[in-house]
C-alpha cells in the first residue's frame, strides 16, 4: 500500500475511533464513576479503556461487539483498580447507620445516600448492580461480561438489593408518604 493510502486509512480509522469515543464515553465513564465514586479515577479508567480499545481496534467486529467489549473491559478494569488501590470507601454497608431525622428526606439526599450505599457494596455485587441499573442489562448479559454463572449474578443482585432495601426502606417509605403516594 502506498504511503498516501496508508495515511488515508489511518485517518479514517482515527475518525471512526473518535466517533466511538464520543458515542460511548458516558457509558464507560459512568461505569467507573458509579463503581469507584471518584471522578478523577473514573476519568483515568475511561481513558485507559479507550486507549486499550485503540490498540485492539482491528479486533472489533461490529457495533454490538464494540459495546460488549467496552462494558466488559470497563467492568474488569474497575474491579482491578479497586483491588489494587483499595479504593473502597472506608465504611461498610453493614455498619452504615440509617439516616437521622436531621437528614430530612429530601430526594437529593436520598439519592446521595443511595449512591454511597452502592459504593460500599462488595465488588461483585456492586458491578452487577451498576450493569443492571446503569446499563439495563439482564443477568444473562451481565454473566457474559463478568465471565460467571447466571445464578451467581442473580445471587449477587439479590443480596445487594436486600442490603440496599434494608438500609433505605425507612427513607423510601417516609418519602412516599411525604409525597402523598401512600404506604408501600
Amino acid at each position, binding site marked *: 500500500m502506498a504511503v498516501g493510502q496508508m495515511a488515508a486509512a489511518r485517518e479514517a480509522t482515527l475518525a471512526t475511533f473518535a466517533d466511538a469515543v464520543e458515542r460511548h464515553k458516558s457509558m464507560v*465513564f459512568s461505569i467507573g464513576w458509579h463503581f469507584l465514586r471518584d471522578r478523577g479515577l473514573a476519568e483515568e479508567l475511561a481513558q485507559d479503556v479507550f486507549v486499550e480499545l485503540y490498540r485492539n481496534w482491528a479486533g472489533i467486529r461490529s457495533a454490538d461487539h464494540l459495546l460488549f467489549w467496552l462494558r466488559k473491559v470497563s467492568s474488569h478494569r474497575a474491579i482491578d483498580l479497586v483491588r489494587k488501590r483499595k479504593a473502597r470507601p472506608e465504611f461498610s454497608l453493614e455498619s452504615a447507620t440509617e439516616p437521622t431525622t436531621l437528614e430530612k428526606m429530601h430526594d437529593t439526599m436520598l439519592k446521595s445516600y443511595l449512591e454511597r450505599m452502592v459504593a460500599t457494596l462488595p465488588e461483585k455485587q456492586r458491578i452487577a448492580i451498576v450493569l443492571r441499573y446503569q446499563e439495563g442489562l439482564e443477568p444473562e448479559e451481565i454473566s457474559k461480561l463478568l465471565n460467571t454463572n447466571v445464578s451467581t449474578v442473580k445471587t449477587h443482585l439479590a443480596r445487594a438489593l436486600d442490603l440496599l432495601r434494608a438500609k433505605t426502606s425507612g427513607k423510601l417509605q417516609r418519602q412516599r408518604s411525604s409525597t402523598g403516594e401512600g404506604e408501600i
Partner: protein
Amino acid sequence: MNGFEEQGSDRRTGESTGEPLDEQLASVLARREPPADFTRNVLARVAEIEVQRARPWWKRLGGFPVLSLRWVPALAAIALIAGGVVYQEHERTVEGLRAKQQLLEALRITNATLRETGARVAQVEISKE
C-alpha cells in the same frame, strides 16, 4: 471496519419494576457525562501511540543514545560481564551433566557387578547341594 452505528442493544434505561428502590437505583445510576475535554485527551494519548509506532525501534528505547560514543566503553563492559556470566553458567551446566553421566555409569557398573556376584553365589549354592 465501518463506523459503528448506535444499535438497539445499547439499552441504558435502567429497568424499573415500579418498586421504589428500583426507581431510585435507576435514577441514581443514570449515565453521567465525563469532562468536556475527555475525547480530546483520549485522542492525544492515541496520537502519542501513533508517534511511538512511527519511530524506528531503536529510537523507541526511551531515547537511549545508542550511537553516542561515550556509551561504547560502558556497553562493552556490560557485554563482557554478561558474556562472562553466561559462559560461567554454561560451564557449570556442562560440568553438572558430566558428573551426572559419571554417576550413571558407576551405577550401571555396580548393578552389573552385583548381578554377576549374585549369579556366582547361586552357582556355588547349587554345586554344594
